[in-house]
């Protein structure tokens, strides 16, 4: 086998695996969106003076940040089977037997916990004087949050969030362990068919590195655009 043959095979494989790119991106985008909305609520609860929501939010963040995503995925996908009766009774089994649903639920809960920390950090960084000034001119609590605190928190959290997006794109690979055929799932299939695991997985790696390079570049552009003003 010559070096050119390897290179040709890797190129073919990249094309073959690119079928999985939309699936990987959908997994990442949907989970990131749900996780983001969840994270805003959790971040507000973490900073809230009310004790019960604060403790609940902190507990959620702690559990999901200190355990592996793989365990979370298996707990939801395989673990739900243990309560099949109860879930059928509630009409939810329909969702939990779907690998897509479980993967997105696990990924969203996971990124929600990490993102909540970033947003809470961003909210803490807003100078208190600004909040007081907004209150002084008669803004409602919601207005203070939505037009003063939150936008600045986002801007503060943006560099770290771009890192989180990259981590999530990498994390979608774990969905292949529960039968989803995204990039890594397809690569596993192809590697079993061709008996050329090294080239196949290397090709998958190249795709991920390219995707993440683009994500990092995109966020870099957004950051620079925000800085210019």
């Amino acid at each position, binding site marked *: 086998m010559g070096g050119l043959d390897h290179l040709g095979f890797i190129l073919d494989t990249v094309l073959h695996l690119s079928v999985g790119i939309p699936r990987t991106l959908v997994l990442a985008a949907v989970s990131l969106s749900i996780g983001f909305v969840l994270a805003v609520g959790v971040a507000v609860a973490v900073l809230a003076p009310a004790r019960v929501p604060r403790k609940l939010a902190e507990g959620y963040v702690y559990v999901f940040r200190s355990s592996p995503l793989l365990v979370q995925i298996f*707990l939801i996908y395989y673990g739900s089977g243990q309560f099949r009766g109860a879930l059928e009774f509630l009409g939810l089994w329909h969702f939990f037997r779907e690998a897509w649903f479980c993967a997105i639920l696990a990924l969203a809960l996971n990124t929600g916990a990490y993102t909540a920390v970033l947003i809470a950090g961003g909210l803490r960084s807003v100078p208190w004087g600004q909040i007081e000034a907004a209150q002084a001119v008669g803004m409602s609590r919601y207005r203070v949050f939505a037009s003063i605190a939150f936008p600045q928190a986002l801007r503060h959290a943006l560099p770290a969030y771009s890192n989180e997006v990259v981590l999530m794109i990498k994390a979608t690979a774990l969905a292949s362990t529960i039968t989803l055929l995204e990039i890594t799932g397809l690569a596993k299939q192809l590697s079993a068919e061709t008996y050329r695991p090294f080239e196949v997985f290397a090709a998958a790696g190249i795709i991920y590195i390219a995707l993440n390079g683009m994500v990092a570049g995109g966020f870099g552009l957004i950051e620079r655009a925000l800085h210019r003003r």
Partner: protein
Amino acid sequence: MVRASTIAWVKRMELGVLAWGDGGWGDELARGAMVTIAIASAAYVVGSVLGILFAAMKLSGSSTLRSLATAYTTAMRGMPEMLVIYIVFFGGGSLGTWIATNVLGVRGHVDLPSFAVGVVCIALSVAAYACEVIRGAVLAVPHGQIEAAQAVGMTSLQRNRLVVAPQAFRLALPGMTNVWQFTVKDTALVSIIGVTEVMRSASIASNATKQPFTFYLAALAIFIVIAYLSQRLFTRLQQSADRGVRWGA
């Protein structure tokens, strides 16, 4: 209705399966936890040493070394850790088979030892993250101290060993605590190549008992306990590293 379904839920979780000994899986899970800690510790040590090496390359004067290290960290941080494990384990296995048939003339399939491969793969990814932490810490050592070390006639080895390293260690500790925490979580991935750590112990137990939720929840709890205890340990370490530091000085 709520009561009835609550009872049904509790009944589904028969916690006797977590018992110690032949009747339960408690001891298997505990052994799995030990393997998890062993893999994480080995990968952390190897990864940190590699991380120091890559950080030295990134800080070196040679542009070749610098770009090599940058290429490595970019690739490792852009690729799922699971793929790294697949590449090394299956790719390495087929490379071994190729060498066996074409070089040694032995027929057959080569399987790599999964524990060692697991440690190496996790260490490779630890190295990429540790490299950034260590590089940042070295750069954070005030430049005046390096000049002072040169002024008193220290060799560059003495300077690094006596002035830079002890301070960089303290400055790198918060970042390296993070690296440890995700190292522990990454070890769950080596279950896919058959290492019987917590995650795989839980899989085996849940297949045998048909109680996946109970066992994956137990695995989750074990990881949380490890994270909690190691956080306390690192906090202690940080306190001892910080003694004698005048804040704001």
